[in-house]
């Protein structure tokens, strides 16, 4: 099962099992917008439940919030996270706050699915990964699956959760395979970071695509006799750093990886959590972070190649933690 298939299976399970679930967003009847992640769901479940929309992000999202207050479980799809910014009021001011503002009596059980769709020289308004930005918002659960089974099961958990959830997937992961597994209905409230690979030399922490970078880097490091532990955050808000803290206590070294920008980003949050909780004597070196540079995405081929963090960057950061020289040039990550 690959990641895109995992997402599609999640939708299929939800639409089949729960009549109150529907999907709405731009491009749902198109072969292009959402990659292979929703292929033919409109044909399978009808265009009344898989709804393509006008170019109206704000109204579409607001409509989903409204329907969620009235008993439905909508999933709003934003095929590109950059365009979702037009809907920010409904996500940040409305969905995230109604429960709190109404004394817990309102539950906007809406799932907003944002797709990170970057690369391909698309430039500054077609490339953004804004998970850290949204993770800043109390009341909005933020979920970033890194594996195919999580892509499916965390989508299901998001939709079944009574709180608004921002579910973020990344098209660079769509082809990634993970072993087949049966569908499980998880309780999102109980989900959090998870160790995907055990190791004792250095802790690599990521979420979404950054987790994939960490896993690849761990493979490379293993060939060099270095045991990296990989922690996948999975849920960015509410942020539960327990697994990260336990891991760093064990390895004494931390590389936080994020495919968003550095300033006020998730990588900084990870390091802060470790700095607060891990006894200084446990740390064998200063934690490091690998992120996007604090610049909007370029379009130019050469600049784009320099812009995105690679497996090599993570490997070298891990080597530096161990006081080792950078690895000879590795092939660039996809």
């Amino acid at each position, binding site marked *: 099962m690959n990641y895109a298939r995992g997402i599609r299976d999640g939708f299929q399970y939800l639409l089949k099992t729960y009549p109150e679930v529907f999907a709405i967003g731009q491009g749902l009847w*198109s072969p292009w917008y959402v990659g292979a992640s929703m292929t033919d769901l409109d044909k399978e479940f009808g265009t009344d439940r898989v709804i393509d929309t006008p*170019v109206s992000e704000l109204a579409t999202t607001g409509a989903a919030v409204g329907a969620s207050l009235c008993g439905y479980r909508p999933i709003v799809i934003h095929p590109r996270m*950059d365009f979702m910014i037009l809907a920010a009021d409904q996500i940040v001011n409305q969905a995230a706050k109604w429960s709190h503002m109404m004394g817990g009596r309102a539950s906007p059980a809406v799932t907003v699915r944002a797709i990170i769709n970057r690369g391909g020289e698309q430039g500054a*308004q077609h490339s953004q990964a804004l998970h850290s930005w949204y993770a800043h918002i109390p009341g909005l659960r933020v979920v970033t699956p890194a594996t195919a089974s999580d892509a499916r099961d965390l989508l299901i958990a998001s939709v079944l959760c009574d709180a608004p959830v921002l579910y973020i997937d990344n098209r660079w992961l769509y082809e990634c395979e993970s072993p087949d597994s049966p569908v499980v209905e998880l309780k999102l409230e109980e989900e959090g970071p998870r160790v995907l690979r055990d190791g004792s030399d250095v802790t690599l922490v990521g979420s979404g695509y950054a987790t994939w970078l960490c896993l690849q880097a761990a493979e490379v490091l293993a060939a060099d006799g270095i045991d990296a532990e990989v922690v996948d955050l999975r849920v960015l808000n509410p942020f539960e750093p327990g697994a990260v803290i336990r891991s760093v206590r064990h390895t004494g070294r931390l590389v936080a990886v994020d495919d968003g920008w550095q300033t006020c980003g998730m990588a900084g949050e990870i390091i802060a959590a470790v700095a607060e909780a891990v006894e200084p004597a446990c740390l064998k070196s200063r934690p490091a972070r690998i992120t996007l*540079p604090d610049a909007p995405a370029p*379009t*130019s081929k*050469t600049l784009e190649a*320099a812009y995105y963090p690679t497996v090599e960057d993570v490997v070298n950061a891990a080597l530096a933690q161990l006081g080792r020289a950078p690895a000879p040039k590795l092939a660039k990550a996809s």
Partner: protein
Amino acid sequence: MANPGIWRNEPAAPRAEPETGRPARAPGNAARGAVAMDPPAGNTLGIHDLLARLDSLAEENYFDGPTADATGPARLGALADPRCYRDPLNIAGWGANGLRAMLGGMIAIRETEIALGRLVESGDVVCPVHLAVGQEAIPVGVSHNLDASDRVFGGHRSHGHYLAQGGDLDQLFAEVLGKDAGCSRGMGGSMHLFAPETGFWGSVPIVGATIPVAVGAALAAKMDGKGAVAVAYFGDGAAEEGVLHEALNMASTMKLPVLFVCENNLYASHMDIAQRQPHDSTARFAHAHAVPAMVVDGNDALAVARAAGRLIGESRAGRGPGYLEAVSYRWYGHVGPDENIDVGLRRSAEELAAWKQRDPVMRLGAAMTARGDLTDADIDSMRADAAARAAQAAERALAAPYPEARALFDYVFARRAG
């Protein structure tokens, strides 16, 4: 009640003669003269003021009264039917030199788009490229009324808007290829064009984003008091974003010199307008905000030029914004040189073939050859020249250097240019 905000200069009947000047309704008594042209006191525009102002614009146009009601205007009718408006343009009253410039402008845009499409096919261009072949008459007609002191803004499909303002061809190709010599120094690609020296103040691919920016440029123009106007180009899809309505309301209330140009090509990516809106004409939104609107055949450069000229003239004279809906069709698909057959409800090989018969280039060219302004050979050589210029620009851009690595950080925070 007649709809006071909607003007069409094309009769809605199929095979109609464009630009007949046949009024469907006799101009009202208040139609012409000083009363009509006097801006109303304060910011309020009464319905009679509006009618008067519109009648004063009428001349060759007719008022689309009978079909209009509180919900808005009629459907586009023949304007959206590719079997209509195929004849050579009526060029009576237009001089050969001006027409040759407009024809040349359209040919240049088309050959450029075709050359860019080839670069996509060859894999040299990777960034998304939205081609506007078939829609060339709109920017050429609009820019006919503009100069470098005006402020034009576009969107994702804006090569033509840039070129019609006189944007540099070499810089366009370099930009699309992400080269340092590009109009945005290779930092933006096809969807981020910038040539303020020509009056082209920027295009970006967030749908609808430059509509309020153009309103702001119009506010600045009004404050400057030098008679400049702003132009916002956007598509029928962008009319579905709330920001259009906020912008129309503001521009109308503040009487800002901005022309809203909706290039209605009946599609937003894969979706037919019939799947997205209850009416296929977007001019109803202008009506709702008391902005004078004209709906024209967007494949008739002269109809576009006339309508834009009239609305821009009003804006320059301090009488506020205008809305031009130009109906057209893109020959290529949403992005890249693929034809996108069989997307949406309607778009099919037959529909595409039919629209190619409403070719804005051919219709002007045929009228000019019929009158003896040009020969077919002249048109062929105009085309060959434009293709050669595009090929040259492509070659130069391919050979040009990429930006240096530091460019990633050089422009993040704005510094005063120079």
